[in-house]
């Protein structure tokens, strides 16, 4: 198996929120699958970190969990984005872009000729 990237601390919640924004309500397994697919299977998602992250987001009120029947009639807990979650996503996305821009500036630097 090719070496996979670890999910950065703090970026997981951004991925979860964005996934829910794009795809609507999803269960934990679905979220995990989608994140791995979106990354082109370059990311290894540790399940041990996914569920605590989901619970944290739920406790902070950014997502809401609800038990429903899944596509093949299995009971699963579906998570949906809340209004607060939408705002939080916008905030995090802005922060992330800024950080990415800053980092990009650093890579754009050329050695100055003296």
């Amino acid at each position: 198996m090719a070496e996979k990237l670890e999910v950065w601390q703090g970026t997981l919640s951004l991925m979860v929120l964005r996934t829910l924004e794009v795809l609507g309500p999803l269960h934990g397994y679905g979220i995990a699958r989608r994140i791995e697919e979106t990354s082109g299977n370059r990311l290894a998602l540790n399940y041990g970190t996914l569920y605590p992250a989901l619970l944290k987001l739920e406790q902070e009120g950014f997502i809401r969990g609800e038990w429903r029947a899944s596509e093949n009639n299995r009971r699963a807990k579906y998570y949906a984005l809340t209004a607060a979650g939408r705002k939080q996503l916008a905030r995090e996305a802005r922060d992330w872009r800024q950080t990415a821009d800053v980092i990009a500036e650093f890579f754009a630097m050329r050695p100055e000729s003296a």
Partner: protein
Amino acid sequence: MSALSLVRVVRRRLAAALREVLASGREDDELREELESHLAMHIEDNLRRGMSPDEARRAALLAAGGLTLAAESVRARRGLPLVENLARDVRYAWRALRARPGFAAAVVLTLALGIGANAAMFTVVNAVVLHPLPYPQPGRVVSLSDADNGDDLGVMDDHTYAVLTASARTMQLAAYWSDSHVLRTRSGPEELAGLAVTSAYFGILGVRPLLGRYIDARDSSASAPPAVVLSEQLWRRALDADPSIVGRTITLDDEAVTVTGVMPARFTTSTGPQLWVPFHIRPSPPGVTRYWFVVGRLRDGATLQRAAFEARALVSPIPVYRPGETSRMTPVVMTLADRRYGEQRKPLLLLWGAVIVLLLIACANLANLTLVRVAARQREFAVRLALGGGRWSLARLLLSEALLLSVAGAVLGLLVSVALVSYFVHLSPASVGNPDAVHLDAAVLVFTIGVALASAVAVGLAPALLAGRGDVARVLSSGTPRASIGGRQHALRQALVVWQLATALVLLTGAGLVAHSFWRVTSIDLGFRPDGLLSVAVRLPRSTYGGGSAGPYHQELMARLRRVPGVMSVALGVPPLSGLSGSYSTSDSTGHLSAPIDEAQVGPGFFKTIGAHIVQGREFDSTDTPGTPLVVVVNTLLARRLFPEGNAVGRTMAGPSGRARIVGVVSAVRPQVEGSASPLLYPDVGQQGIGRYEHLLVRTGGPVEATERAIVQVARAIDPRLPPPAIQRMDQVVARAVAPRAFVFVLLSLFAGVAALLAAIGLYGVLSRVVTERTREIGIRIALGADPGRLTRAVLQQGIVLAALGTTLGVLGAIAAVRVMRSLVYDTSVYDPWTWAAGPLLLVLVSLLASYVPARRATRVDPIVALRQE
């Protein structure tokens, strides 16, 4: 995170925690269900991709490897982690312990003894050392006395007292004296201990009265009506707790006295003074010095050092005459707590230290025991780690087990401590200060909880640290149920055992010295025979026995007592060990005072009665009367001092009331059990005049209790208005005098013995472990024909090396520690060869025994069983 969202999160978590407590099962189920549905969906996906059912399942489980960790991590996030985890850990620990009841019982019992002994010692230390006095700001209450050439008299002369009361700025002073009074109650007259106190006394101690007021300046003038303050104990017992007692009169010493107040029970003790009367100090006549007890309170801003300095500066030294020297009296200022309990403090602190060491030794044993359990549970731990249980949660589980055990130990220990404390009080009331104040209180509870927590950490910490260290793969692959945890752990256990042996030896050495001292004290020749000897204090009131009628009363009492069955002889005199002897000086024609001579007035038959040895001449008899020439008896020391050339009998000397002829020389009687005898003169009490306060000595050959009852009956028959006389058994007086030594001897021996036993058990445990871990190897060796004797020797050798190390370190430790024993031994060198030989010898013997049992076991290993074990 903004403040608002923080509040929101906290509120949600609190709600979640609450739900958790109410329905933790439901929440757990929900989480499990969510994770299970995750797994199921993964398996379905795998099946869709064309995997076989088995493959699909394995791949999904592999991917979900961290599920246990996820579950724990989610739980930790959901509840209030501390409370939640604690409850769960305790539940796990309880389950783990219930599976091993023998181990749990051994640990709880060991801890109960260790914690119980600690709680009991702390109860006493708390009462005597930490809270000795029931007064506000007790550290500022001082006691003053004279020191004669550095020898503290315990009392202060009236001249010094007058100077200090008038001029001292650092403290306020009061004087008091103990006396006794007869209270007329419904059940008859009763003799009560009391204090005569000056008007400042109560203000200095600062305790508010329960009822009315205490004695103050209003009562100090000689014209004030007679007043008395009662103790709450006396008020409840003899006066039915009459709420309107203040202002009423009671009959005290045949006089009507007004009750001004009642002091609360904590102000005194059941054996202490029960009433207080005003003390009117009159100037002493010239040439007479009176002494009394003096207390004071430091004024604001003053320190003990400044007060002592001021007292020394104010008092011009008083010359005192001694043969060949002029000594000087100087005032001594110390805290009242030091005065009362200074002597008890050191042995108590020593015993406290010993009992803490004992607990440490016990904890070392338990840590050892837990380490063995860790080794045995290595596989269980490895499985937990492999399944994703965190190392920290594993350590927490072990700590929880230790905590559960130590809490159980503490609860049992408190019961042990209550029993021990009552045994302490029984053994030596004097050693525990005020027995009324020695009881379980909040401080003792807090201390016990602290000790329990500390021992939980001590017992659980090392195993908890080691538990996470094992190599999971190696343990799981080795396949044996009891994999060894390796050399590091074994070294730790050996170090613990060496430390235990060394510490036990230090305790044994201390116990040996104390035991030797105790043996010396109990084999002292007191100069009289205390068994079967009773001392009877007779106090006759002035009102009925004033004008010389005391003599006939005493003669009548003695005559009747001689007819009591079992009584062998009766005599008047100062009881031995009572400290009631006086002293006198004579002045020559130039007015120069002689050196003081100690004297004790005794009557005919006194020396025969107490069992003293008459060296020369005779003792007083019925031929010596007030009409015949004055006669005296001297002890051998005074005879040697006055007539170094010998032949004292027949010579005359200056007695307390004129020249007197020496008729006999007696062997010296000790003034105290541990005090050496001094020169003493015995005048004839019959010739000096029998007073209203006298002591009778009664020697009985019959049962002592029956004689005591007979004495009370005879006294009542002569004069029913008198209270029953106070009777003391001299054997009990001696026992009380040596009780503090017995206290230290019994307890220190007990602690040292238990320490040695625990150390031996520790050694046994380590060697047993060695044999168990090497069972397979030993089995192979035996199968290959190894000599069983050599195997025994190999194990024994390990034990001997550990014992030798422990003993050597212990001797070094004892050499360092023995200095504190110097003030606690009697007539025994701290390097007493018997003690220093016996301690190590005992320890080595016990160690050999502890090593021999596992060594024997090594030879009995059955090779077939040993090899089949795996």
